[in-house]
């Protein structure tokens, strides 16, 4: 049972959390610009390193906030915890990998409304 420090709630037992896998994988802004392999890399490819690992955790049975952690996958020791959008201390994470909150609002699309199938089936 790991002891995990939620940046908002402090140290809590692992049973309050769920692990969200590798951190710092930003969703590509222009998905149409990617070929199948590049999109596949975003979707499926994960590092699974032995040793230093940056990963996402969710305080699912607590404050329900997501955060990041640096953990050693061999010793299970946590090195640091930090909020989404923050940079880990003392480590360089690949620059393209940190997109939490740093990008322009990628969700700002327009509603064309041309294919509104809502109501055809309920």
């Amino acid at each position: 049972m790991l002891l995990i420090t939620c940046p908002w709630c402090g140290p809590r037992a692992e049973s309050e959390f769920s692990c969200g896998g590798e951190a710092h994988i930003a969703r590509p802004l222009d998905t149409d610009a990617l070929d199948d392999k590049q999109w596949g890399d975003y979707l499926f490819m994960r590092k699974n390193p032995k040793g230093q690992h940056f990963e996402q955790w969710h305080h699912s049975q607590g404050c329900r906030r997501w955060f990041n952690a640096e953990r050693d996958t061999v010793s299970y020791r946590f090195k640091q915890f930090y909020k989404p959008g923050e940079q880990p201390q003392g480590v360089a994470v690949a620059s393209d990998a940190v997109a939490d909150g740093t990008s322009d609002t990628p969700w700002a699309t327009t509603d064309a409304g041309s294919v509104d199938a809502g109501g055809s089936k309920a």
Partner: protein
Amino acid sequence: MTGSRIDKAGIRLDRKRTVNFRFNGRSYQGFAGDTLASAVLAAGDTVLSRSWKYHRPRAILTCGVEEPAALVQLELGAATIPNAKMPEVELYEGLQSESALPWPSPAKHLLSINRWFTPLFPAGFYYKTFMWPAKAWMWYERFIRKAGGLGAAPTEEDESLYVQQNIHCDVLVVGAGVAGLAAALAAGRSGARVILAELGAHLGGSAHRLQGTINGKPARAWVADAQRELAQMPELRIIRRGVVFGYHDHNFLTIRESLTDHLPLAERSGFRERLWRVRAGQVVLATGAHERPMVFGNNDLPGVMLSSAMADYAELYGVRVGSQIVIASSCDSAYADARLLLAAGATVTVVDTRVGEPAPGCRAHQAQADGITVLRGFVPVLAEGSAAVTGLVVRQMDKDNKASGESRELPCDAIGMAGGWNPAIHLYSHSGGKARWDDELVCFKPGPAMPQQASVGACNATWSLGSSLDEGSLAGAAAATWAGFEARPEAYAVDEPAIKATGTFWIAETGEPLSRRPKAFVDYQNDVSASDIELAIREGFESIEHIKRYTAMGFGTDQGKLGNINGMALAARAMGKPIDKVGTTTFRPNYLPISFGAFAGLERGELFDPARKSSAHDAHVAAGCLFEDVGQWKRPWYFPKPGEDLHQAVNREVMAVRGSVGMLDASTLGKIDIQGPDAAKLLNWVYTNPWLKLEVGKCRYGLMLDENGMVFDDGVTARLGENHFLMTTTTGGAARVLGWLERWVQTEWPDMQVYMSSVTDHWSTFAVVGPQSRAVVQKVLTGVDLSNEAFAFMGWRTATAAGVPARVMRISFSGEMSFEINVPSNAGKHVWNALMEAGKEFGITPYGTEAMHVLRAEKGYIIVGQDTDGSISPYDLGMGGMVSKTKDFLGRRSLTRSDTAKADRKQLVGLLTDEEKLVLPEGAQLTELSQAAPPPVPMIGHVTSSYFSPTLGRSIAMAVVRGGQRRMGQKIHAALADGRYVAATVCSPVFYDPQGKRLHA
């Protein structure tokens, strides 16, 4: 061996209180403070049980939890405990026990038979003998079970109560021997929160056996002082009868505290066991060591026992296990034991495998001076006797350590084994520590400590009293200091004779092959002998893990606490390798067997998985409803009238909905309230269709995809206001969908101003469905115009339902006109009853999930998780029209991946069987072949939903079929489990009212 009670009082006995108990059908009497083992020994019993493979007679070997042989079935019925170790059973009035291995009766002397059989049962005997023919195993098994069975599993439900409790502390000290006590004192004096856990009922560990004084007092007196001081510390908690059985990550440890097992059955009340879940800042392991048996011929004869156990029985319980005792020894602790046994009135000889005359002042010399015969440079070869020990054959070693010298036969009635000590590194190993072999100390000892942890005393292979105290005190003070307290170790003045190095002895090197010698046991419980280990290696097993599995060494209830190190050493000897090259055993939780009850705690029965019930649940029960479990929800399944079966009830419910009006309790659907200026943008991202321009007052159906482009939830969302939506999800998917939304907003789109909250339990939802639905709700709802013009399909309105504020949605999951009335759950039952009352004149029929399924399948509406399985895209469902081409949304890019876009994917279609009354089984495989063919039969899909449609008077099915949308009108076949191939025609999944006229009525 004939044990007897000596007049000298055992430390733990209260001789004024006698205790009556039963063992193997006979009545016995012991004293308060006895264990089952000590009381039976005192009664002079010799053969207590039989070994499981050879049925050799066995007696008590140890005085602790490492006991491998003396196992009993304790008590009967619901209170029965299988495989209790006799030395750990505290005696109580009325105790009932039977040997766990009584067949044949332990009292019968069938020795000769066992010995004849012995050569027939080599290592791997069962593997080799019962493999062919495979079918015969069932026949063999009956006999093997009878021959090999340990205790019997309880057949009645355990009525005891168990509880679990979380606790935090600065320092957890495991073990209350002298090292643990010193640690607890040093940490506790600082004011730190300390837990001292001791698996036994008493503190002090082996202090009663130790030679030497602490601050001028005998160790036992010091223990009493320490106990008094600890009792005064307000922040220190002592957990007695508390075995630390697991040491997990980040100093999380589990303790099983036994609360009532030591009491007579009638006096037990409250919780039987408490499972402490401890998070400790620092852990001090002071778990001691287990004495190592010695491997020689017939070393399992009743009368052979660990040397320390003999001393324990004498000191603690006033039981002398023999009058003429020989201790075979490789280490100095034998001399302390010998002095105690001498004081108990036995004559004692110590046979020491180490050579050289003892120097004046050393322990061996002191023992000699006391009148103990000491024989140095001799090794044990063979125990003599048939049902009990009559002598020990020893042989002198030459200068090459070969047992080739003089042979002596030492008559005796008990043999002690002092082969050295195995540090109890189990918890250190649980924590991830890597033990290492120490050639000097002749044992495995802890390697580097894990974070915030220390091992002290005998579990750290520290044998002397003084060093154990120093280590304990230092570790306790350091742990408290780490936790922020001011602590200092105590300097103890210890006077003790020096301890000489332990000798290395694994088995007598007589030059004779092990297979020709009498059985010399390594694992007493699983009857693994030295020759079995050699045989395993000869047959090609080289890894210690394989040798263990092949011979079953260490697989008993004692988990190899006694025998594993000897086994590894003998494996190393047979392979000609050093021990550390053979490998180490990784100990895993649990340290001792733990009851399932302790793990379950209070989470049993109704509390195991709490049921969620809708607000109208009582009304459903009163209506005779049967329920279906959906997630944790109890959902109405169907409402049978007297005499109706499932199909009759469902047909009636469906026809009522199509013909007049029915009502469904849809409260279990997930409901998420979404608010904020960017709420519409969020929906636009998570659903495939556009949401920005949905008008307030309207609802819209949405498909939610994962990033692989596969459907993972669906539901209707209503726009309650410009910045306010109410999303519904599938019943089982509510938590998953909320998590999905939260994750994207928090991690990817933190600038989005949107907030969401689960309101599933806050709103009750009742769907009034059918051609007469408007007429029914008209009687109950006020403040709303229900006409088709004012309130069209896919709209929602506020209203008052039987006096309760309500939201009414005109949406449908049946193809009929339908009004879904949402009211606060507190008023749910009231509104349900009002609607039922209002619908009486129309014959309103409550219906459940089964009728709902038929109704939706007649319309071809999917159920996510039934018609989809995580590999179905919107296009596969024929719902490509819902996929926006002009915006990005989660999963969109995947829809054009080469695999997702290929033509022959499995697609949702309808199926009509040629035989109209035949309902295909859900899951049936589909093929183009019309009759059985040799495997592999090419399959093209499977049936996902299948029902008898009372509306159409025939069966209908939905299926996913490879390239299904291009197969319309084709005939395919379903392969049934009984071998039939059933023909069906591929068609649209919309079987009823394809134009949707009834929805808009």
